[in-house]
């Protein structure tokens, strides 16, 4: 958008650009209007320089992009933990591939891949304790795996069967795992950010030493409840860690159209808390930054905003076609594979080999296959699950609706085979 030079004041001029009517005075349906002269449209990017694109020098890093340990930076993690993280990252990638595949075959209805963002998910997951509560986004399967959620539960959710803890009520990937203190995911963007603040306040009120973490995207920072959640956490010094996974896109909207701020981390200043930018493709940097924020929160030092800079290499979801809006300009980031980077690091430390890699893939694939097989053969949720869990007890009017339904069904009505989610 560029400012018009002419002195024309839109409201007052008569000629110039066509304007159907003065405000509040609509033209009648039938009146004649002149044909438009052809116009040369400009489709151009917001001209502001994008301070985040390309380089990652100003980001917190532990591993170099080539997989070397950076001078003076130590992970401080045991071999077991390092390999565990690697395992979760690979498992996430394989699950992604399989689920997208099943979606393409019409065997599940929808999926949200996170390819390229495995480090940000797994690195942060390790920083939390059991007692901590997590409000995840819909794009962090690696976090669940790293935190110990059984993969069968995740697959069951994607099939929406009766083993799904959410009883097939939500679209795939909208998980909820009470056992791991992972709060129910909903589709509306941003609502969970202020809920996390509330949970963190409750932890403080109840005298728990737990903290709360919440994940959201670059797009999520524009939501109302990013604002309300961050502000309230700032004022109350709630033990909350706000994790923005900046994958540089919100469906088709690039980060520089999302906000004009210098970075996402800098938004912390509006709420009186620290903001830290981290290389989100560096699993050890993510761990380090998250751990430090979690420790601070637990120690009563208040909330932190983390910005994990990574890249959404795939489509937004199984319904999205990114070539429509980003063509090929994304190459540079396409090559940054956090798994490869971490693998090189492990190999450089003599912790990993090709043989181990192959065995791991075999094992993880077998596990996914087994889960898929079970899930695909599981029954649908029972008819009555339509009516349960609206309230603790099914009230009379819902029981009546259920009973009418039972009477009515068996009329031969079947699911629409053409119904498919378009986004």
């Amino acid at each position, binding site marked *: 958008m560029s400012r018009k030079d002419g002195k024309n004041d839109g409201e007052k001029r008569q000629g110039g650009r066509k304007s159907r009517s003065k405000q509040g005075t609509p033209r009648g349906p039938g009146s004649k209007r002149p044909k438009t002269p052809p116009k040369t449209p400009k489709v151009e990017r917001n001209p502001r320089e994008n301070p985040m694109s390309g380089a990652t020098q100003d980001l917190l890093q532990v591993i170099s992009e080539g997989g070397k340990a950076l001078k003076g930076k130590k992970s401080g993690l045991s071999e077991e933990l390092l390999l565990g993280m690697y395992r979760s990252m690979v498992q996430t990638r394989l699950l992604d591939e399989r689920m997208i595949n099943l979606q393409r075959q019409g065997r599940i209805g929808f999926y949200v891949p996170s390819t390229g963002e495995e480090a940000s998910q797994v690195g942060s997951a390790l920083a939390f304790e059991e007692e901590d509560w997590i409000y995840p986004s819909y794009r962090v399967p690696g976090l669940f795996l790293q935190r110990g959620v059984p993969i069968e539960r995740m697959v069951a959710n994607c099939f929406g069967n009766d083993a799904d803890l959410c009883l097939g009520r939500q679209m795939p990937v909208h998980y909820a795992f009470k056992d791991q203190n992972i709060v129910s995911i909903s589709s509306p963007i941003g609502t969970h950010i202020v809920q996390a*603040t509330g949970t963190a306040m409750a932890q403080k009120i109840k005298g728990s030493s737990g903290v709360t973490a919440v994940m959201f995207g670059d797009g999520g920072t524009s939501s109302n409840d990013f604002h*309300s959640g961050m502000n309230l956490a700032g004022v109350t010094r709630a033990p909350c860690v706000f994790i923005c996974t900046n994958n540089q896109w919100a469906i088709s909207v690039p980060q520089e159209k999302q906000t004009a701020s210098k970075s996402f981390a800098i938004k912390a200043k509006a709420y009186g808390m620290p903001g830290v930018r981290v290389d989100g493709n560096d699993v050890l940097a993510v761990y380090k930054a998250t751990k430090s924020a979690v420790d601070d929160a637990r120690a009563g030092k208040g909330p932190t905003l983390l910005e994990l800079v990574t890249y959404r290499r795939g489509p937004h979801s199984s319904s999205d076609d990114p070539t429509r809006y980003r063509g090929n300009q994304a190459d540079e980031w396409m090559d940054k594979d956090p798994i490869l980077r971490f693998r090189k690091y492990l190999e450089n430390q003599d912790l990993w080999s090709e043989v181990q890699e192959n065995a791991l893939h075999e094992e993880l694939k077998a596990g996914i296959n087994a889960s898929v097989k079970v899930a695909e053969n599981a029954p649908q949720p029972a008819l009555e699950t339509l009516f349960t869990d*609206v309230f603790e007890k099914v009230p009379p009017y819902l029981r009546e609706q259920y009973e009418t339904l039972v009477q009515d069904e068996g009329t031969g009505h079947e699911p629409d085979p053409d119904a498919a989610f378009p986004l």
Partner: protein
Amino acid sequence: MSQITLVQAVNDALKEEMRSDNDVVVLGEDVGVNGGVFRCTADLVEEFGEERVIDTPLSESGIIGAAIGMAVYGLRPVPEIQFSDFIWPAFDQITSEMAKMRYRSGSQFTCPMVIRTPYGGGIRGGLYHSQSPEAYFTHTSGLTVVVPSDPYDAKGLLKAAIRSPDPVIFLEPKRIYRAPKMEVPEDDDYIVEIGKAAVRREGTDFTITAYGAMVEVALKACELAEKKGWNGEVLDLRTLVPLDEESLIASVTKTGRLVTLQEAPKFSGYSSELSAIVAEKAIDVMEAPIRRVAGFDVPFPYTLEHVYMPHAERVLKAVDDVMTF
């Protein structure tokens, strides 16, 4: 028993529940030292401290969103929205989150919380301090919607709401906040069950349904009708969801004539549901059209408020219609 106002009844209910359950917390704008702009939360911060009586920044979505996070964790928050006209920034949290948390998680996570908010006209509050928003909530599956009409109910229903395992919208009729005092039990165990209507006046000729500040108007209309020799029944719904359908059907089955009464605009309002239920389940007992007395389908005015608000004379006109049909 003591003689108290509706404001005091709310205040007492909060105090009793906060004393007996440390999980009950109150949050909202000006609820702390100021005690709420209507004084419903007066003295709470002095007794329970700033950790449980929280003055929040000016953000309704923040208040309700945070309360959801607290409820999900195991507290029983009672957020206050200063005027129900200002609840809309929180509507996404209410309708997308609070109302659906239990369903979408298969009861893994729940939202036991009560949103208290003053509503309704009659206080010269104009467009944005007078509205009656109940219909926006009654259509949302997962919400319980309660409207007391006097101090006795206000206390008992609020206590029941705070103990409920699911979210409750608690609409307080601000016009009668300080209306004549009433005897209200002080027993800690006293509650009024959610989901039960109350017959405020027994009658045989026609039924008026009402709730909140309109109950008084309905009673007054019945007095006027009595002069014409008609004997009206007033059903105070008390809980809009779940509706006490049984009492509604029972009353119209007896009288065969129904006038519904609400302050909110008429079109697509809550009372339309009452008509629809009767037209679906009891049309054969009806001896006259179902007349609705309601606010006009315009925004709430300031100077002409007294013309806008349903009053007994207007209700009587509707009673006339159904009695002389």
